[in-house]
């Protein structure tokens, strides 16, 4: 890199001179004032606030005011320079900064899918391994072992994680319709089918166009994956006879496909669901055309509020406790983290610097700091009622001053004061999310790596995805789906299975 830089510098100097001489004179360089840079030099006195540069994901329209940040700095004795990056281009910016060595001291990695972008850099030792230090800190030592395990790369911990609930999927359905037709809360997939069928037959949406289930073009966050866990399918990878097997080779997956195929052929699901966007899917619910939605359960709040405006009297209920073939509930779970916080060695120079940073982020789990980042400032952004948080009703104000800081919070479940919900069904949804932790199905391959999966995983996944939709729509039969699996195996899938199993055996 050294001589390349020299070449670039030489040429750019030369060209800058020419530029100045040419008609473009005056377009010269301005000094960079970026948040990157390497100001990690230890502070002279230990009481002076620690200067921290950070790159964070912005989920709101605009960059927040700094009131919450000031409070944060006071509580953690640090001085933050935050470089906000728009959510839609976060990975792109991260890659450019990574490849050009301009990451700040603390860089958030967007989500689990983005791990692929840094794996090789991590393996070549570009980031600090934080695992060995965690035990020295009050809060970091108490991080969830399972989740930490899920963040591992080659068996080591390189990041702090942003807490997330494990399993939020569930069924949201029209309670008023169910009551009218005398249908009880579904407990099995058969109950669910009956509900969809009765909803359609009774045509409560009107016009003969009532749809049972509204689904969308997503096999993971749409209906499919949640449904599949109710048919006893493992989460991405299952263990059969001590060996890892991909979910689509299990009976549960096939049963899920058959279930959806039946829904499709009987018209109990929207016909264009393989190409329906989330917004269009939700519109089917908001306008009272469909009665059941399977997805993120806490969405029930928005759904209730919006549907009532179109369909007065609409009422929703939720459940996630659907018993599988073995008579017990089960629900696929996420790895338990959202974004990951990484510490590049290019900007965090020494171990001492790293320890100072970790000491600051340890405080992110202190109850008052955790609440500050999640809700904002008490009295200004929220009030308390019965020991629970009631957020200010001015959403736009929150969005401008408080909500964006959620993107740099670590705590989301630990040491957080719970929210107060005026809507009982929302309270229920949250209780169910917590309850689901007990029957959540983890992905046993989450901490494992396969070279072939890194190289070809996404393309191979598309083969299965296409086969699944084609089966549901009746383009291929069971035999055809076996061919799809065969194709997956031949193009690299067989290797993925053996690579994961080799790693899995090592880990046991």
């Amino acid at each position, binding site marked *: 890199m050294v001589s390349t830089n020299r070449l670039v510098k030489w040429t750019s100097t030369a060209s800058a001179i020419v530029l100045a001489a040419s008609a473009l004179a005056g377009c010269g360089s301005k000094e*960079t*004032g970026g948040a990157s840079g390497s100001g990690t030099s230890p502070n002279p006195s230990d009481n002076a606030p620690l200067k921290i540069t950070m790159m964070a994901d912005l989920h709101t329209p605009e960059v927040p005011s700094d009131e919450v940040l000031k409070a944060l700095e006071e509580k953690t004795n640090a001085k933050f320079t935050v470089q906000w990056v728009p*959510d839609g281009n976060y990975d792109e910016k991260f890659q450019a900064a990574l490849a050009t060595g301009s990451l700040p001291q603390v860089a958030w990695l967007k989500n689990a899918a983005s791990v692929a972008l840094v794996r090789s850099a991590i393996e070549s030792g570009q980031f600090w391994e934080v695992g060995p230090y965690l035990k020295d800190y009050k809060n970091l030592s108490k991080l969830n072992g399972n989740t930490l395990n899920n963040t591992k790369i080659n068996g080591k911990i390189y990041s702090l994680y942003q807490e997330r609930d494990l399993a939020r999927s569930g069924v949201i359905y029209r309670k008023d319709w169910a009551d009218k037709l005398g249908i009880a809360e579904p407990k099995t997939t058969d109950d669910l089918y009956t509900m969809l069928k009765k909803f359609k037959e009774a045509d409560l949406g009107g016009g003969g166009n009532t749809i049972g289930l509204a689904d969308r073009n997503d096999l993971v966050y749409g209906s499919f994956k949640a449904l599949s866990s109710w048919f006893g399918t493992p989460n991405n990878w299952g263990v059969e006879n001590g060996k890892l097997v991909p979910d689509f080779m299990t009976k549960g997956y096939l049963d899920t496909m058959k279930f959806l195929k039946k829904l499709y052929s009987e018209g109990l699901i929207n016909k264009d669901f393989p190409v329906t966007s989330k917004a269009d899917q939700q519109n089917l619910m908001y306008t009272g055309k469909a009665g059941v939605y399977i997805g993120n359960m806490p969405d029930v709040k928005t759904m209730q509020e919006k549907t009532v*405006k179109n369909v007065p009297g609409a009422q929703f209920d939720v459940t996630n406790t659907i018993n599988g073939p073995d008579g017990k509930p089960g629900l696929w779970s996420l790895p338990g983290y959202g974004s990951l916080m990484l510490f590049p060695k290019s900007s965090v120079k020494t171990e001492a610097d790293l320890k100072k940073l970790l000491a600051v982020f340890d405080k992110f789990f202190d109850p008052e700091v955790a609440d500050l980042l999640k809700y904002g400032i008490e009295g200004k952004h929220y009030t308390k009622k019965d020991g629970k948080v009631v957020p200010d009703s001015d959403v736009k104000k929150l969005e401008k001053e408080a909500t964006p800081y959620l993107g740099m919070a670590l705590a989301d479940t630990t040491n957080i004061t719970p929210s107060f919900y005026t809507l009982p069904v929302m309270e229920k949804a949250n209780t169910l999310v917590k309850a689901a932790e007990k029957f959540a199905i983890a992905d046993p391959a989450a901490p494992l790596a396969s070279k072939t999966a890194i190289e070809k995983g996404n393309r191979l996944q598309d083969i299965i995805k296409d086969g699944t939709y084609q089966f549901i729509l009746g383009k291929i039969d069971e035999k055809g789906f076996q061919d799809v699996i065969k194709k997956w195996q031949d193009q690299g899938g067989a290797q993925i299975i053996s690579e994961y199993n080799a790693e899995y055996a090592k880990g046991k």
Partner: protein
Amino acid sequence: MVKDKTAGSRLFDIFNYLLLLLVALVVFLPIMHVVMSSFATVEEMARKPFILIPETFTLVAYRYVLSTGAVFKALGVSAGITIVGTAVSMFTTSLMAYGLTRRDLDGRKVINFLIVFTMLFSGGLIPTFLVVKELGLINSYWALIIPNAVSAFNLVIMRSFFMNLPDGIEESARIDGCSDFGTLFRIVLPLSMAVIATISLFYAVYFWNSYQSAILYINDAEKWPLQVLLRQIVLVASGISADTANDFVQPPEQTVKMAVIVIATVPILLVYPFLQKYFAKGALVGSVKG
């Protein structure tokens, strides 16, 4: 053309007008839907697939977007880089395009090929980033202009227009004692107003719509152009980020998305009518003869 009206000519006109009317209608209805949805209520938009005239007009969506304080600042940034960028680009491009029209210029073919070559091969995002970084342009407004100052496409078109100018113009200019610069600025450019207008429009739209450079080269959110901000609002509005584990922000309504499109498009649309007169038939020939 208006004077002689043979039957065939009249028939031609009837077909031509009807066909154009049909084309305009096909294009217009969806646009109308986008514009009108931005004034509709959220409920109506959910209920109706196609809105041509909303039942109730509301400015809620616009209020939402415009209450984002940064919008006006970003609008200024965008206007600034569009104006300065177009000026810089037009200056560089027209000079180069004219320079390359001289047929006995040694190296002309090589340079022409080198230009076309850059339309096909590119070193990619990261090496370009390094060049911009080494030039010290990171976080400067110039980073939004200089790395995209000349478009090979625009240059090739402009050169081709210059080469199509009537012959003898250059010769007579030379006889009148014009230098090469004089010929370009006093004769060639005034005769090429149509292509100048076209390429200026292309550059202006490019700079107005560009957001990737801003994402990559601008770290300071204060300096974001309008497109970055509006895209951010639209992405939040479509709830795209909500499929990840980070779905803690409640997306604003679909109507907001439409309002954003209107706000992002109207300013640059206003440029067009000013350029249109240069597209009138025979607009330039008069000046050639005069």
